[in-house]
């Protein structure tokens, strides 16, 4: 029986290993092709005509801009309509350095990049608090302000512009720009295989869930913003070097912004090769159109966009991805097999002795306008014990969790983890301090694989990369998800998705685990599996607080029960006592006549 179950699993691993090897080969093919293209470009730069070299330069310029935009808008999900502002800043700083202080072009470029980073740091910190279209337009406004400042300053030419000493030939500038484009590709490839990239993809998918996994989303976003600004500024400084002129109209050119966005979307947003494909294809097409139909060029480009969006929503890259090409490789996968001697305890002992008070909420109050969602609610979680919080809809259970994990702030009362006051801490700090949670409705990261979903919090909680990989691999095995390690959460059935979410919380090695209705809608078999998992965690000293609607599902394992109704605690105590409490029966279970539950 056991054997028969094992064999298909084994076959599946082998098959998946074969496909993953094939996929890797295809990935290497992509790099090989990229190398050939770069080589061809070098030859064009060296032996091509002036026009060809200039075309190469502008293609590479747009490739760099496209990658810059892709980092903040594609990987991090913050669509910006003003990244070209950093292009302008780069151009101006470089021009100033070259005109006023006679710096060499590379020093000027370095200065431009540094200036952009120094500027992007405070700007990003403020602007990235905005969401969606507001961030996009706020950035647009900023780049307009930059253009107006450049127009009104008399430093380098003002609104009329000023020539910049041209020292480089077209060939040189094209070669340097090509080098920058290659650098941008490599930077993005590195990002997509690094923990930072993992964090960006996670926060793009769900910022709250990323915070709950212990990720400082603000810091990650700002880093991405600075990287993007630096790339754009680099492009700007080289642009000045190439054209030998600086003026506000071309440095803060909106058409560049739109063309860049178009290229990324046409190629495939958020992918490694999309921006490059988009930049090359659109540049070549618009160049050819310019020669053939100078009048109708923009019309044809516009029509091309419509066609691309309607027939090819994922961009050019999605066409290749349909055949398994150019897919993103999971970070540090596949999970390595873990030998028995190397196994770490899956639940490292969190607290020394059991039955010690870990989490303590004292008289917590939360009001939403006139509604008091929680009124002086107190709750204590002890290590090695399971506390159940039950109550009808709207009783304030999830609000309590949001307060504990910092997603919401109390109007009164204190929440302590051990001795530490949590009231004012950011959610990611609370998660790192040792409180992990799940959400009422699953909040997976659709862009990450199951393996990466576990790796993400493991990297937060572990001291080293090896330890994180080992812990995540072990958890994957424990959750019986090893075969689906590279599956997207969206393809997992609901039960497994729940397990993955509990696993994600457990990877933080929490001292307190908050579960928000994890057993809702689960089969008895799955509930049994969760019970086993929870007992393991509790045996290691973890304190569990579980909100549950399915009362029979939580009662058998709960040590202590709180009953909430209309934001107040109406009863607490041992499960059997509480269920006999008349107030509970009346408030929560309705009539007092019948047998309350079939527990």
């Amino acid at each position: 029986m056991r054997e028969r179950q094992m064999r298909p699993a084994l076959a599946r691993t082998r098959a998946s290993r074969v496909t993953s090897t094939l996929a890797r080969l295809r990935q290497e093919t992509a790099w090989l092709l990229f190398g050939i293209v770069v080589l061809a470009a070098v030859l064009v730069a060296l032996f091509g005509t002036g026009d060809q070299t200039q075309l190469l330069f502008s293609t590479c310029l747009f490739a760099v801009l496209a990658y810059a935009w892709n980092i903040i808008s594609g990987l991090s999900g913050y669509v910006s309509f003003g990244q070209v502002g950093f292009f302008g800043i780069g151009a101006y700083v470089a021009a100033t350095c070259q005109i006023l202080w006679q710096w060499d072009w590379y020093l000027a470029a370095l200065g431009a990049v540094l200036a952009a980073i120094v500027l992007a740091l405070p700007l990003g910190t403020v602007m990235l608090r905005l969401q969606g279209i507001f961030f996009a337009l706020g950035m647009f406004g900023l780049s307009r302000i930059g253009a107006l400042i450049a127009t009104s300053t008399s430093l380098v030419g003002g609104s009329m512009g000023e020539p910049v000493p041209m020292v480089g030939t077209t060939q040189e500038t094209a070669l340097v720009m090509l080098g920058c484009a290659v650098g941008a590709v490599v930077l993005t490839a590195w990002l997509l295989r690094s923990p930072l990239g993992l964090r960006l993809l996670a926060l793009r998918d769900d910022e709250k869930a990323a915070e709950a996994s212990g990720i400082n989303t603000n810091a990650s976003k700002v880093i991405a913003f600075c990287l993007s600004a630096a790339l754009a500024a680099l492009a700007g400084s080289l642009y000045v070097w190439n054209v030998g002129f600086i003026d506000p109209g071309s440095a803060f050119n909106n058409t560049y912004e739109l063309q860049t966005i178009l290229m990324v979307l046409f190629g495939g947003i958020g992918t490694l090769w999309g921006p490059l494909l988009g930049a090359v294809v659109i540049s070549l097409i618009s160049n050819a159109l310019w020669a053939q139909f100078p009048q109708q060029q923009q019309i044809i480009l516009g029509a091309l966009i419509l066609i691309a969006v309607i027939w090819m929503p994922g961009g050019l890259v999605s066409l290749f991805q349909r055949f398994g090409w150019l897919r993103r490789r999971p970070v540090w996968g596949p999970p390595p097999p873990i030998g028995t001697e190397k196994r770490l305890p899956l639940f490292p002992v969190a607290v020394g002795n059991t039955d010690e008070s870990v989490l303590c909420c004292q008289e917590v109050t939360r009001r939403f306008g006139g509604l008091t969602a929680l009124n002086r609610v107190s709750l204590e979680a002890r290590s090695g014990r399971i506390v159940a919080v039950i109550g009808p809809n709207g009783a304030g259970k999830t609000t309590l969790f949001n307060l504990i994990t910092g997603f919401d702030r109390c109007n009164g009362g204190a929440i302590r983890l051990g001795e530490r006051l949590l009231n004012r801490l950011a959610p990611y700090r609370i998660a790192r301090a040792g409180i992990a949670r799940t959400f009422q409705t699953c909040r997976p990261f659709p862009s990450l694989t199951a393996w990466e979903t576990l790796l993400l919090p493991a990297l937060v909680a572990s001291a080293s990369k090896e330890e994180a990989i080992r812990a995540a691999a072990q958890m994957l095995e424990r959750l019986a998800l090893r075969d689906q390690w590279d599956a997207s959460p969206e393809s997992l059935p609901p039960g497994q998705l729940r397990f993955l979410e509990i696993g994600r919380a457990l990877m933080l090695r929490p001292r307190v685990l908050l579960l928000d209705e994890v057993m809702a809608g689960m089969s008895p078999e799955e509930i049994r599996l969760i019970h086993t998992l929870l007992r393991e965690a509790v045996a290691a000293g973890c304190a569990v607080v579980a909100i549950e609607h399915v009362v029979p599902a939580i009662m058998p394992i709960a040590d202590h029960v709180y009953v909430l109704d209309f934001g107040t605690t109406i009863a607490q105590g041992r499960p059997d006592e509480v269920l006999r409490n008349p107030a509970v029966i009346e408030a929560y279970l309705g009539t007092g006549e019948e047998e309350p539950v079939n527990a």
Partner: protein
Amino acid sequence: MLQLQTYLLLLLTGIMWGGVYLLMALGLNLIYGVMKVVNLAHGDFIVVAGLLAVTLYGAFQAGPVLAIPLAALLFLLVGLAVYRGLLARVDTAGPQGELRTLLITFGLSSIISNIALLIWGGQYQSVPFFQSSVRLGSLFLPESLIISSLVAFVLAFAVQFWLIRTRWGRLVRATAQSELGAASCGLNTSRIRLLTFALGAALAGAAGALTVVLIPVQAASGGFVTVQAFTLIALGGLGNYLGALLAAILLGVIEVSSSYFLGASAASAMIYLIFILVLIVRPQGLLGQRGRI
């Protein structure tokens, strides 16, 4: 005394310019409110309607009285065609959907403005209508500004009335608040979206045919108009009609007075600055509601 008069004039013209901006943003606001689609071709609709009015004037000496209904009708049809042919073909939900609609309307904008460039060329054109000034005490106000802003406020209130008091308006608001909810109550939401888009386009057409008497347009100025209109509705809280009215007046007064005191380029910097400040302090706009987590 002279000081007071200057301030009064600035305030009055500011409010009137606010009305004109509101008129140019009405259609965009309606479409965003219901469909959550930012129509980047909005400014091009306005510009083409304006150029059409110029041609009508040149050919038949026809004033805005004829041009406005014609342009509105034409862009109603354009709106129907764009929705049926383009927007209905893609999935517009979620952040990916938002990008898709932005891209489609951006492509459309590029097509329309360049066709307009082929037809009308790149010069600024205007309709010389309502060129006299009205004397108000010791103040002089251009007639075109007064008429435009009057029509703007009337149209804004008409749209508001239509949304709140009529059956169709109720259906539109229901769809705006929850498309799923509206659909499960048996509303044909795709037809309501179609209607809204066509109406928004028609409003843009009407606005273009009227404001061309005040603001000279050129084939490529659509992008700027779109940005201006978007700034306004974002300031008011996207899709919020009362907020847009407030924002329009605020923007008009600020622009007129800062261009009087600081000069034209500082005035446009001022608007962006205020826009960003408002976004940071109140990201939901002046009257917008904060979304729930």
